[in-house]
Protein backbone atom coordinates (compact mmCIF):
# COMPACT_ATOMS: atom_id res chain seq x y z
CA UNK A 1 0.00 0.00 0.00
CA UNK A 2 2.84 2.35 0.77
CA UNK A 3 3.86 3.03 -2.82
CA UNK A 4 0.52 3.30 -4.48
CA UNK A 5 -1.67 6.28 -4.24
CA UNK A 6 -4.73 5.97 -2.13
CA UNK A 7 -7.94 7.00 -3.81
CA UNK A 8 -10.90 7.51 -1.55
CA UNK A 9 -14.10 9.07 -2.77
CA UNK A 10 -12.36 10.40 -5.82
CA UNK A 11 -9.73 12.25 -3.82
CA UNK A 12 -6.09 11.25 -3.99
CA UNK A 13 -4.12 10.96 -0.78
CA UNK A 14 -0.44 10.66 -0.28
CA UNK A 15 -0.02 7.67 2.06
CA UNK A 16 2.74 9.49 3.92
CA UNK A 17 0.14 12.05 4.91
CA UNK A 18 -1.62 9.63 7.21
CA UNK A 19 -1.57 11.54 10.46
CA UNK A 20 -3.99 14.15 9.20
CA UNK A 21 -6.82 14.80 11.64
CA UNK A 22 -9.35 14.43 8.82
CA UNK A 23 -8.20 10.94 7.83
CA UNK A 24 -7.49 9.14 11.10
CA UNK A 25 -8.85 5.90 9.60
CA UNK A 26 -5.61 5.68 7.62
CA UNK A 27 -3.76 5.15 10.89
CA UNK A 28 -5.41 1.73 11.16
CA UNK A 29 -5.11 0.60 7.55
CA UNK A 30 -2.87 -2.26 8.64
CA UNK A 31 -5.71 -3.83 10.65
CA UNK A 32 -7.73 -6.16 8.41
CA UNK A 33 -11.51 -5.86 8.28
CA UNK A 34 -13.13 -8.04 10.92
CA UNK A 35 -10.16 -7.86 13.32
CA UNK A 36 -10.57 -6.03 16.63
CA UNK A 37 -10.08 -2.29 16.16
CA UNK A 38 -11.42 -0.87 19.40
CA UNK A 39 -10.77 -2.80 22.59
CA UNK A 40 -12.60 -1.92 25.79
CA UNK A 41 -11.13 -3.57 28.87
CA UNK A 42 -12.52 -3.63 32.42
CA UNK A 43 -14.39 -0.38 31.91
CA UNK A 44 -15.80 0.92 35.17
CA UNK A 45 -17.69 4.14 35.75
CA UNK A 46 -18.59 5.00 39.32
CA UNK A 47 -20.24 8.23 40.38
CA UNK A 48 -19.45 9.35 43.89
CA UNK A 49 -21.48 11.94 45.75
CA UNK A 50 -21.38 12.70 49.44
CA UNK A 51 -24.40 10.53 50.14
CA UNK A 52 -23.77 7.49 47.99
CA UNK A 53 -21.67 5.71 45.43
CA UNK A 54 -23.38 4.66 42.20
CA UNK A 55 -21.77 2.15 39.88
CA UNK A 56 -23.01 2.99 36.37
CA UNK A 57 -20.83 0.60 34.37
CA UNK A 58 -19.40 -2.49 36.04
CA UNK A 59 -16.12 -3.79 34.56
CA UNK A 60 -17.22 -4.26 30.99
CA UNK A 61 -14.91 -5.65 28.29
CA UNK A 62 -15.64 -6.03 24.60
CA UNK A 63 -14.12 -5.53 21.15
CA UNK A 64 -15.34 -3.58 18.18
CA UNK A 65 -14.17 -5.17 14.95
CA UNK A 66 -13.06 -3.10 12.03
CA UNK A 67 -15.80 -2.44 9.50
CA UNK A 68 -18.68 -3.66 11.64
CA UNK A 69 -21.68 -1.92 13.10
CA UNK A 70 -22.17 -2.86 16.72
CA UNK A 71 -25.30 -1.85 18.59
CA UNK A 72 -25.50 -1.50 22.32
CA UNK A 73 -29.00 -2.08 23.67
CA UNK A 74 -30.19 -2.27 27.24
CA UNK A 75 -32.89 -1.10 29.60
CA UNK A 76 -33.36 2.65 30.04
CA UNK A 77 -30.75 4.27 32.23
CA UNK A 78 -28.45 1.25 32.18
CA UNK A 79 -25.38 3.18 31.10
CA UNK A 80 -25.36 2.65 27.32
CA UNK A 81 -24.56 6.26 26.59
CA UNK A 82 -22.03 6.35 29.42
CA UNK A 83 -20.02 3.61 27.68
CA UNK A 84 -20.17 5.53 24.42
CA UNK A 85 -19.05 8.77 26.06
CA UNK A 86 -16.11 6.92 27.59
CA UNK A 87 -15.03 5.64 24.19
CA UNK A 88 -15.37 9.16 22.75
CA UNK A 89 -13.13 10.53 25.50
CA UNK A 90 -15.76 13.06 26.57
CA UNK A 91 -16.11 11.15 29.87
CA UNK A 92 -13.19 9.78 31.86
CA UNK A 93 -13.90 6.26 33.13
CA UNK A 94 -13.19 5.49 36.79
CA UNK A 95 -10.97 2.62 35.66
CA UNK A 96 -10.32 0.48 32.63
CA UNK A 97 -8.68 1.09 29.27
CA UNK A 98 -9.96 1.87 25.80
CA UNK A 99 -7.60 1.31 22.89
CA UNK A 100 -7.87 1.94 19.17
CA UNK A 101 -5.28 -0.31 17.59
CA UNK A 102 -2.22 0.35 19.73
CA UNK A 103 -3.30 3.82 20.79
CA UNK A 104 -4.77 4.41 24.21
CA UNK A 105 -7.73 6.82 24.21
CA UNK A 106 -7.56 9.43 26.91
CA UNK A 107 -9.11 12.65 25.61
CA UNK A 108 -11.58 13.31 22.81
CA UNK A 109 -10.21 13.48 19.28
CA UNK A 110 -11.19 13.36 15.65
CA UNK A 111 -10.38 9.63 15.45
CA UNK A 112 -13.67 9.00 17.31
CA UNK A 113 -16.47 10.89 15.56
CA UNK A 114 -19.79 11.27 17.27
CA UNK A 115 -23.43 11.67 16.25
CA UNK A 116 -25.69 13.10 18.95
CA UNK A 117 -29.33 12.39 19.73
CA UNK A 118 -30.21 16.09 19.69
CA UNK A 119 -28.00 16.68 16.61
CA UNK A 120 -25.71 19.28 18.28
CA UNK A 121 -25.46 21.26 15.02
CA UNK A 122 -24.22 24.85 14.96
CA UNK A 123 -27.19 27.12 14.16
CA UNK A 124 -24.95 30.03 13.07
CA UNK A 125 -23.45 27.93 10.28
CA UNK A 126 -25.07 26.79 7.06
CA UNK A 127 -25.62 23.09 6.42
CA UNK A 128 -22.48 22.92 4.28
CA UNK A 129 -20.40 24.78 6.84
CA UNK A 130 -21.63 22.44 9.57
CA UNK A 131 -20.48 19.46 7.54
CA UNK A 132 -17.14 21.13 6.83
CA UNK A 133 -16.51 22.09 10.47
CA UNK A 134 -14.07 19.28 11.22
CA UNK A 135 -12.18 19.78 7.94
CA UNK A 136 -12.00 23.50 8.61
CA UNK A 137 -10.37 23.11 12.01
CA UNK A 138 -8.07 20.43 10.61
CA UNK A 139 -6.80 23.07 8.17
CA UNK A 140 -8.08 21.42 4.98
CA UNK A 141 -7.97 23.96 2.11
CA UNK A 142 -11.25 25.58 1.11
CA UNK A 143 -11.52 24.00 -2.35
CA UNK A 144 -10.96 20.52 -0.97
CA UNK A 145 -13.48 21.13 1.79
CA UNK A 146 -16.08 22.20 -0.75
CA UNK A 147 -15.41 19.18 -2.97
CA UNK A 148 -15.67 16.76 -0.09
CA UNK A 149 -18.74 18.30 1.53
CA UNK A 150 -20.46 18.27 -1.85
CA UNK A 151 -20.18 14.49 -1.99
CA UNK A 152 -21.62 14.11 1.50
CA UNK A 153 -24.45 16.52 0.76
CA UNK A 154 -25.26 14.30 -2.20
CA UNK A 155 -24.91 11.01 -0.31
CA UNK A 156 -27.24 12.31 2.39
CA UNK A 157 -29.80 13.76 -0.05
CA UNK A 158 -29.07 17.31 1.07
CA UNK A 159 -27.78 18.71 -2.23
CA UNK A 160 -30.33 21.50 -2.35
CA UNK A 161 -29.85 22.48 1.28
CA UNK A 162 -26.13 23.24 1.40
CA UNK A 163 -26.69 26.93 1.99
CA UNK A 164 -29.74 26.48 4.26
CA UNK A 165 -29.69 27.29 7.93
CA UNK A 166 -30.16 24.55 10.50
CA UNK A 167 -33.45 25.93 11.82
CA UNK A 168 -34.92 25.60 8.33
CA UNK A 169 -34.47 21.81 8.36
CA UNK A 170 -36.70 19.02 9.65
CA UNK A 171 -35.43 16.72 12.38
CA UNK A 172 -34.58 13.97 9.92
CA UNK A 173 -32.58 16.36 7.73
CA UNK A 174 -30.78 17.71 10.77
CA UNK A 175 -29.53 14.25 11.66
CA UNK A 176 -28.43 13.68 8.06
CA UNK A 177 -26.22 16.73 8.56
CA UNK A 178 -25.01 15.30 11.88
CA UNK A 179 -24.07 12.00 10.24
CA UNK A 180 -22.36 13.72 7.30
CA UNK A 181 -20.42 15.98 9.68
CA UNK A 182 -19.04 12.92 11.50
CA UNK A 183 -18.44 10.75 8.41
CA UNK A 184 -16.61 13.36 6.36
CA UNK A 185 -13.76 13.21 8.88
CA UNK A 186 -13.20 9.49 8.23
CA UNK A 187 -12.73 8.77 11.91
CA UNK A 188 -11.37 5.39 12.93
CA UNK A 189 -14.70 4.73 14.62
CA UNK A 190 -18.05 6.55 14.58
CA UNK A 191 -20.05 6.66 17.80
CA UNK A 192 -23.79 7.18 17.45
CA UNK A 193 -25.67 8.04 20.62
CA UNK A 194 -29.34 7.20 19.98
CA UNK A 195 -29.05 9.15 16.72
CA UNK A 196 -32.63 8.54 15.62
CA UNK A 197 -34.17 8.69 19.09
CA UNK A 198 -35.62 12.17 18.59
CA UNK A 199 -37.27 11.31 15.26
CA UNK A 200 -40.73 9.98 14.47
CA UNK A 201 -41.09 6.32 13.47
CA UNK A 202 -41.27 6.91 9.70
CA UNK A 203 -38.35 9.32 9.56
CA UNK A 204 -36.45 6.87 11.69
CA UNK A 205 -36.93 4.06 9.17
CA UNK A 206 -35.91 6.30 6.30
CA UNK A 207 -32.73 7.35 8.08
CA UNK A 208 -31.89 3.75 8.93
CA UNK A 209 -32.13 2.95 5.23
CA UNK A 210 -29.97 5.96 4.36
CA UNK A 211 -27.33 4.78 6.79
CA UNK A 212 -27.39 1.28 5.28
CA UNK A 213 -26.97 2.81 1.82
CA UNK A 214 -24.03 4.92 2.87
CA UNK A 215 -22.33 1.91 4.49
CA UNK A 216 -22.67 -0.05 1.24
CA UNK A 217 -20.34 2.39 -0.51
CA UNK A 218 -18.01 3.17 2.34
CA UNK A 219 -16.84 0.72 4.98
CA UNK A 220 -17.08 2.24 8.45
CA UNK A 221 -16.72 1.05 11.99
CA UNK A 222 -19.72 2.16 14.01
CA UNK A 223 -20.85 1.81 17.60
CA UNK A 224 -24.56 2.50 17.77
CA UNK A 225 -26.42 3.05 21.02
CA UNK A 226 -30.18 2.60 20.77
CA UNK A 227 -33.14 1.66 22.90
CA UNK A 228 -34.91 0.22 19.85
CA UNK A 229 -34.34 -3.52 19.45
CA UNK A 230 -35.87 -3.34 15.98
CA UNK A 231 -33.36 -0.69 14.92
CA UNK A 232 -30.45 -2.70 16.34
CA UNK A 233 -31.55 -5.82 14.45
CA UNK A 234 -32.03 -3.92 11.20
CA UNK A 235 -28.62 -2.26 11.28
CA UNK A 236 -26.14 -4.32 13.27
CA UNK A 237 -23.58 -6.99 12.62
CA UNK A 238 -23.50 -7.65 16.34
CA UNK A 239 -25.67 -6.53 19.25
CA UNK A 240 -24.33 -6.10 22.75
CA UNK A 241 -27.19 -6.62 25.19
CA UNK A 242 -26.63 -4.98 28.56
CA UNK A 243 -28.22 -5.71 31.91
CA UNK A 244 -29.84 -3.07 34.09
CA UNK A 245 -27.55 -0.72 36.03
CA UNK A 246 -24.80 -1.31 36.92
CA UNK A 247 -24.36 -2.36 33.30
CA UNK A 248 -22.79 -5.72 32.61
CA UNK A 249 -22.85 -7.58 29.31
CA UNK A 250 -25.70 -10.05 29.23
CA UNK A 251 -25.04 -11.41 25.78
CA UNK A 252 -23.46 -10.53 22.46
CA UNK A 253 -25.61 -11.56 19.53
CA UNK A 254 -24.37 -12.04 15.97
CA UNK A 255 -26.86 -10.85 13.40
CA UNK A 256 -26.46 -12.34 9.95
CA UNK A 257 -28.05 -11.44 6.65
CA UNK A 258 -27.13 -8.86 4.06
CA UNK A 259 -28.51 -5.39 4.42
CA UNK A 260 -31.12 -4.11 3.67
CA UNK A 261 -32.81 -6.67 5.87
CA UNK A 262 -36.36 -7.84 5.97
CA UNK A 263 -37.79 -6.54 9.20
CA UNK A 264 -40.51 -9.19 9.16
CA UNK A 265 -38.41 -12.34 8.57
CA UNK A 266 -38.79 -15.23 11.09
CA UNK A 267 -35.12 -15.00 12.22
CA UNK A 268 -35.61 -11.30 12.87
CA UNK A 269 -38.76 -12.03 14.86
CA UNK A 270 -37.09 -14.74 16.93
CA UNK A 271 -34.16 -12.52 17.87
CA UNK A 272 -36.44 -9.61 18.63
CA UNK A 273 -38.49 -11.78 20.94
CA UNK A 274 -35.40 -13.10 22.70
CA UNK A 275 -33.95 -9.65 23.36
CA UNK A 276 -37.23 -8.01 24.34
CA UNK A 277 -38.03 -10.84 26.75
CA UNK A 278 -34.68 -10.36 28.42
CA UNK A 279 -35.03 -6.57 28.59
CA UNK A 280 -38.41 -6.99 30.26
CA UNK A 281 -36.81 -8.92 33.10
CA UNK A 282 -34.35 -6.06 33.49
CA UNK A 283 -36.94 -3.32 33.59
CA UNK A 284 -36.24 -1.34 36.71
CA UNK A 285 -39.42 0.68 36.50
CA UNK A 286 -41.39 -1.75 38.70
CA UNK A 287 -38.63 -2.56 41.18
Amino acid at each position, binding site marked *: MSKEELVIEGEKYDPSDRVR*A*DRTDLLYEHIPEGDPLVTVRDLNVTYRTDEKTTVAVDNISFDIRKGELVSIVGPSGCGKSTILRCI*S*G*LLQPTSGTIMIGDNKCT*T*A*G*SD*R*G*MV*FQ*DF*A*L*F*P*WRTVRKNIE*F*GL*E*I*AGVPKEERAARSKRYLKAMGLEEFGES*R*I*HELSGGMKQRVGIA*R*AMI*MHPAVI*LMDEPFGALDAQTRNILQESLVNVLKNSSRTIVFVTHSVDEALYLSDRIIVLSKRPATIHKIIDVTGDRPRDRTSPEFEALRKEILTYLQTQNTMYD
Partner: protein
Amino acid sequence: MLTIEYDENNRNHRLVRSLLITIVSLVAFLALWWVVTAVMNDKNFPTPDKVFIALWELLLNGDPIGGHSVWEYIAVSLRTFLTGFLMALAVALPLGLTLGYIKPLREFTAPWIEIVRPIAPIAWAPIFVLSFGSQLGPALVVFIGIFFPLLTNIIFGVQRIDKNWLDASKTLGATQGQLFYKVVLPATVPYILNGIKVGLGVGWMCIVAAEIYNKFGGIGQYLVDMVNGGLMANAFSAIIIIAVLGLATTGVAEYVSKVVSRRMGMDA
Protein backbone atom coordinates in the same frame (compact mmCIF):
# COMPACT_ATOMS: atom_id res chain seq x y z
CA MET B 1 -50.26 32.80 -3.62
CA LEU B 2 -53.41 33.50 -1.68
CA THR B 3 -51.72 32.78 1.61
CA ILE B 4 -48.83 35.10 0.73
CA GLU B 5 -51.24 37.94 -0.01
CA TYR B 6 -53.07 37.23 3.18
CA ASP B 7 -49.81 37.30 5.16
CA GLU B 8 -48.76 40.55 3.50
CA ASN B 9 -52.05 42.21 4.38
CA ASN B 10 -51.85 40.87 7.87
CA ARG B 11 -48.34 42.23 8.26
CA ASN B 12 -49.28 45.69 7.05
CA HIS B 13 -52.32 45.63 9.24
CA ARG B 14 -50.22 44.84 12.29
CA LEU B 15 -47.72 47.57 11.37
CA VAL B 16 -50.43 50.24 11.06
CA ARG B 17 -51.96 49.06 14.29
CA SER B 18 -48.72 49.30 16.30
CA LEU B 19 -47.96 52.72 14.75
CA LEU B 20 -51.40 53.97 15.74
CA ILE B 21 -50.96 52.74 19.29
CA THR B 22 -47.60 54.53 19.54
CA ILE B 23 -49.05 57.83 18.29
CA VAL B 24 -52.06 57.67 20.60
CA SER B 25 -49.76 56.78 23.49
CA LEU B 26 -47.48 59.78 22.84
CA VAL B 27 -50.43 62.17 22.57
CA ALA B 28 -51.84 60.79 25.83
CA PHE B 29 -48.42 61.26 27.45
CA LEU B 30 -48.30 64.94 26.41
CA ALA B 31 -51.86 65.45 27.63
CA LEU B 32 -51.04 63.88 30.98
CA TRP B 33 -47.90 65.99 31.30
CA TRP B 34 -49.94 69.09 30.53
CA VAL B 35 -52.67 68.32 33.04
CA VAL B 36 -50.25 67.43 35.86
CA THR B 37 -48.00 70.47 35.40
CA ALA B 38 -50.99 72.79 34.93
CA VAL B 39 -52.55 71.56 38.16
CA MET B 40 -49.23 71.72 40.05
CA ASN B 41 -48.68 75.25 38.78
CA ASP B 42 -45.02 75.06 39.91
CA LYS B 43 -42.44 76.98 37.88
CA ASN B 44 -39.98 74.10 38.38
CA PHE B 45 -42.27 71.86 36.33
CA PRO B 46 -43.04 73.69 33.07
CA THR B 47 -45.94 72.72 30.82
CA PRO B 48 -44.99 71.01 27.54
CA ASP B 49 -45.68 74.06 25.36
CA LYS B 50 -43.02 76.08 27.24
CA VAL B 51 -40.56 73.20 26.97
CA PHE B 52 -41.05 72.77 23.22
CA ILE B 53 -40.70 76.52 22.65
CA ALA B 54 -37.43 76.42 24.63
CA LEU B 55 -36.30 73.44 22.56
CA TRP B 56 -37.17 75.28 19.33
CA GLU B 57 -35.20 78.33 20.53
CA LEU B 58 -32.25 76.14 21.48
CA LEU B 59 -32.22 74.45 18.07
CA LEU B 60 -32.46 77.80 16.23
CA ASN B 61 -30.39 80.21 18.31
CA GLY B 62 -28.23 78.10 20.61
CA ASP B 63 -28.15 78.32 24.38
CA PRO B 64 -29.61 81.41 26.06
CA ILE B 65 -26.44 82.20 28.08
CA GLY B 66 -23.30 81.64 25.98
CA GLY B 67 -24.98 81.38 22.58
CA HIS B 68 -23.29 78.05 21.80
CA SER B 69 -25.03 75.93 19.18
CA VAL B 70 -26.93 72.91 20.45
CA TRP B 71 -24.84 70.75 18.09
CA GLU B 72 -21.69 71.67 20.01
CA TYR B 73 -23.26 70.29 23.16
CA ILE B 74 -24.49 67.21 21.41
CA ALA B 75 -21.10 66.62 19.79
CA VAL B 76 -19.34 66.74 23.16
CA SER B 77 -21.88 64.36 24.69
CA LEU B 78 -21.65 61.96 21.78
CA ARG B 79 -17.86 61.92 22.00
CA THR B 80 -18.02 61.24 25.74
CA PHE B 81 -20.63 58.56 25.20
CA LEU B 82 -18.82 56.86 22.33
CA THR B 83 -15.50 56.84 24.23
CA GLY B 84 -17.20 55.28 27.26
CA PHE B 85 -19.00 52.74 25.09
CA LEU B 86 -15.89 51.65 23.19
CA MET B 87 -13.91 51.33 26.41
CA ALA B 88 -16.69 49.23 27.95
CA LEU B 89 -16.81 46.99 24.88
CA ALA B 90 -13.03 46.61 24.76
CA VAL B 91 -12.88 45.51 28.40
CA ALA B 92 -16.18 43.63 28.81
CA LEU B 93 -15.85 41.48 25.68
CA PRO B 94 -12.60 39.62 26.46
CA LEU B 95 -13.30 39.67 30.19
CA GLY B 96 -16.87 38.41 29.87
CA LEU B 97 -15.89 35.60 27.48
CA THR B 98 -13.04 34.54 29.76
CA LEU B 99 -15.07 34.69 32.97
CA GLY B 100 -17.97 32.87 31.33
CA TYR B 101 -15.70 30.11 30.05
CA ILE B 102 -13.46 29.56 33.09
CA LYS B 103 -15.63 28.76 36.09
CA PRO B 104 -13.00 29.09 38.88
CA LEU B 105 -12.07 32.53 37.60
CA ARG B 106 -15.73 33.52 37.49
CA GLU B 107 -16.31 32.33 41.04
CA PHE B 108 -13.19 34.13 42.22
CA THR B 109 -14.12 37.47 40.67
CA ALA B 110 -17.85 37.31 41.38
CA PRO B 111 -17.54 39.11 44.77
CA TRP B 112 -15.56 41.94 43.15
CA ILE B 113 -18.25 42.45 40.55
CA GLU B 114 -21.03 42.28 43.13
CA ILE B 115 -19.28 44.86 45.31
CA VAL B 116 -18.60 47.40 42.57
CA ARG B 117 -21.74 46.94 40.47
CA PRO B 118 -24.33 48.48 42.86
CA ILE B 119 -22.33 51.72 43.19
CA ALA B 120 -24.23 54.40 41.26
CA PRO B 121 -22.20 55.83 38.37
CA ILE B 122 -22.89 59.35 39.74
CA ALA B 123 -20.83 58.42 42.82
CA TRP B 124 -17.83 57.87 40.58
CA ALA B 125 -18.27 61.17 38.69
CA PRO B 126 -16.38 63.55 41.04
CA ILE B 127 -13.63 60.98 41.64
CA PHE B 128 -13.11 60.25 37.96
CA VAL B 129 -13.18 63.89 36.86
CA LEU B 130 -10.75 64.85 39.64
CA SER B 131 -8.38 61.98 38.82
CA PHE B 132 -8.64 61.71 35.04
CA GLY B 133 -9.65 65.22 33.94
CA SER B 134 -12.70 66.55 32.17
CA GLN B 135 -12.05 64.54 28.97
CA LEU B 136 -11.54 61.01 30.22
CA GLY B 137 -13.41 61.44 33.53
CA PRO B 138 -16.94 61.77 32.10
CA ALA B 139 -16.27 58.98 29.59
CA LEU B 140 -15.32 56.71 32.48
CA VAL B 141 -18.65 57.42 34.19
CA VAL B 142 -20.44 56.30 31.02
CA PHE B 143 -18.05 53.33 30.86
CA ILE B 144 -19.15 52.20 34.34
CA GLY B 145 -22.80 52.46 33.31
CA ILE B 146 -22.40 50.39 30.15
CA PHE B 147 -19.76 47.98 31.43
CA PHE B 148 -21.76 45.98 33.99
CA PRO B 149 -24.90 45.14 32.02
CA LEU B 150 -22.67 44.28 29.06
CA LEU B 151 -20.37 42.09 31.15
CA THR B 152 -23.16 40.18 32.90
CA ASN B 153 -24.94 39.57 29.57
CA ILE B 154 -21.77 38.17 27.99
CA ILE B 155 -21.02 35.93 31.00
CA PHE B 156 -24.62 34.71 30.94
CA GLY B 157 -24.36 34.03 27.20
CA VAL B 158 -21.23 31.91 27.55
CA GLN B 159 -22.83 29.92 30.38
CA ARG B 160 -25.90 29.29 28.23
CA ILE B 161 -23.86 27.65 25.45
CA ASP B 162 -25.20 24.21 24.56
CA LYS B 163 -22.68 21.76 26.02
CA ASN B 164 -23.31 19.44 23.08
CA TRP B 165 -21.79 22.07 20.74
CA LEU B 166 -18.55 21.87 22.71
CA ASP B 167 -18.68 18.05 22.84
CA ALA B 168 -19.35 17.81 19.11
CA SER B 169 -16.44 20.16 18.39
CA LYS B 170 -14.09 18.11 20.55
CA THR B 171 -15.00 14.91 18.71
CA LEU B 172 -14.28 16.78 15.47
CA GLY B 173 -10.79 17.55 16.73
CA ALA B 174 -11.14 21.12 18.02
CA THR B 175 -8.39 22.48 20.24
CA GLN B 176 -9.19 24.75 23.20
CA GLY B 177 -8.41 27.80 21.08
CA GLN B 178 -10.64 26.59 18.26
CA LEU B 179 -13.45 25.87 20.71
CA PHE B 180 -13.20 29.46 21.83
CA TYR B 181 -13.11 31.13 18.41
CA LYS B 182 -15.33 28.73 16.45
CA VAL B 183 -17.97 27.95 19.08
CA VAL B 184 -17.91 30.11 22.23
CA LEU B 185 -17.52 33.41 20.38
CA PRO B 186 -20.20 32.95 17.68
CA ALA B 187 -22.59 31.29 20.14
CA THR B 188 -22.34 34.34 22.40
CA VAL B 189 -22.91 37.00 19.71
CA PRO B 190 -26.68 37.35 20.37
CA TYR B 191 -25.96 37.88 24.07
CA ILE B 192 -23.20 40.40 23.31
CA LEU B 193 -25.62 42.37 21.13
CA ASN B 194 -28.32 42.23 23.78
CA GLY B 195 -25.79 43.42 26.37
CA ILE B 196 -24.89 46.32 24.09
CA LYS B 197 -28.56 47.24 23.77
CA VAL B 198 -29.12 47.23 27.53
CA GLY B 199 -25.77 48.93 28.17
CA LEU B 200 -26.49 51.79 25.76
CA GLY B 201 -29.70 52.57 27.65
CA VAL B 202 -27.90 52.65 30.98
CA GLY B 203 -25.10 54.69 29.40
CA TRP B 204 -27.48 57.54 28.52
CA MET B 205 -28.80 57.49 32.09
CA CYS B 206 -25.25 58.35 33.15
CA ILE B 207 -24.60 61.22 30.75
CA VAL B 208 -25.89 63.99 33.07
CA ALA B 209 -23.94 62.59 36.02
CA ALA B 210 -20.87 62.32 33.80
CA GLU B 211 -21.03 65.93 32.63
CA ILE B 212 -22.06 67.68 35.86
CA TYR B 213 -18.49 68.84 36.46
CA ASN B 214 -17.75 69.89 32.88
CA LYS B 215 -16.84 73.51 32.28
CA PHE B 216 -18.05 73.45 28.75
CA GLY B 217 -19.64 70.77 26.84
CA GLY B 218 -22.18 68.14 26.90
CA ILE B 219 -25.90 68.19 27.01
CA GLY B 220 -25.70 67.10 30.66
CA GLN B 221 -23.70 70.16 31.62
CA TYR B 222 -26.19 72.34 29.71
CA LEU B 223 -29.02 70.82 31.75
CA VAL B 224 -27.23 71.53 35.04
CA ASP B 225 -26.48 75.12 33.96
CA MET B 226 -30.10 75.75 33.07
CA VAL B 227 -31.32 74.35 36.40
CA ASN B 228 -28.80 76.54 38.23
CA GLY B 229 -30.03 79.54 36.24
CA GLY B 230 -33.65 78.74 37.02
CA LEU B 231 -34.49 78.24 33.32
CA MET B 232 -36.55 75.10 33.86
CA ALA B 233 -38.14 74.97 30.41
CA ASN B 234 -34.64 74.94 28.91
CA ALA B 235 -33.54 72.23 31.34
CA PHE B 236 -36.48 70.07 30.26
CA SER B 237 -35.62 70.65 26.62
CA ALA B 238 -32.22 69.08 27.36
CA ILE B 239 -34.01 66.07 28.84
CA ILE B 240 -35.91 65.67 25.58
CA ILE B 241 -32.67 65.78 23.59
CA ILE B 242 -31.12 63.10 25.82
CA ALA B 243 -34.25 60.98 25.47
CA VAL B 244 -34.12 61.24 21.66
CA LEU B 245 -30.40 60.37 21.59
CA GLY B 246 -31.03 57.39 23.87
CA LEU B 247 -34.00 56.20 21.86
CA ALA B 248 -32.06 56.46 18.59
CA THR B 249 -29.00 54.51 19.80
CA THR B 250 -30.90 51.76 21.60
CA GLY B 251 -33.30 51.55 18.65
CA VAL B 252 -30.42 50.94 16.25
CA ALA B 253 -28.87 48.44 18.68
CA GLU B 254 -32.14 46.57 19.06
CA TYR B 255 -32.61 46.38 15.29
CA VAL B 256 -29.05 45.13 14.68
CA SER B 257 -29.41 42.62 17.53
CA LYS B 258 -32.66 41.26 16.11
CA VAL B 259 -31.44 41.01 12.52
CA VAL B 260 -28.10 39.42 13.40
CA SER B 261 -29.61 36.91 15.85
CA ARG B 262 -32.18 35.88 13.28
CA ARG B 263 -29.58 35.53 10.56
CA MET B 264 -27.51 33.38 12.91
CA GLY B 265 -30.57 31.21 13.51
CA MET B 266 -30.44 31.98 17.20
CA ASP B 267 -33.45 34.19 17.94
CA ALA B 268 -34.86 32.36 20.90
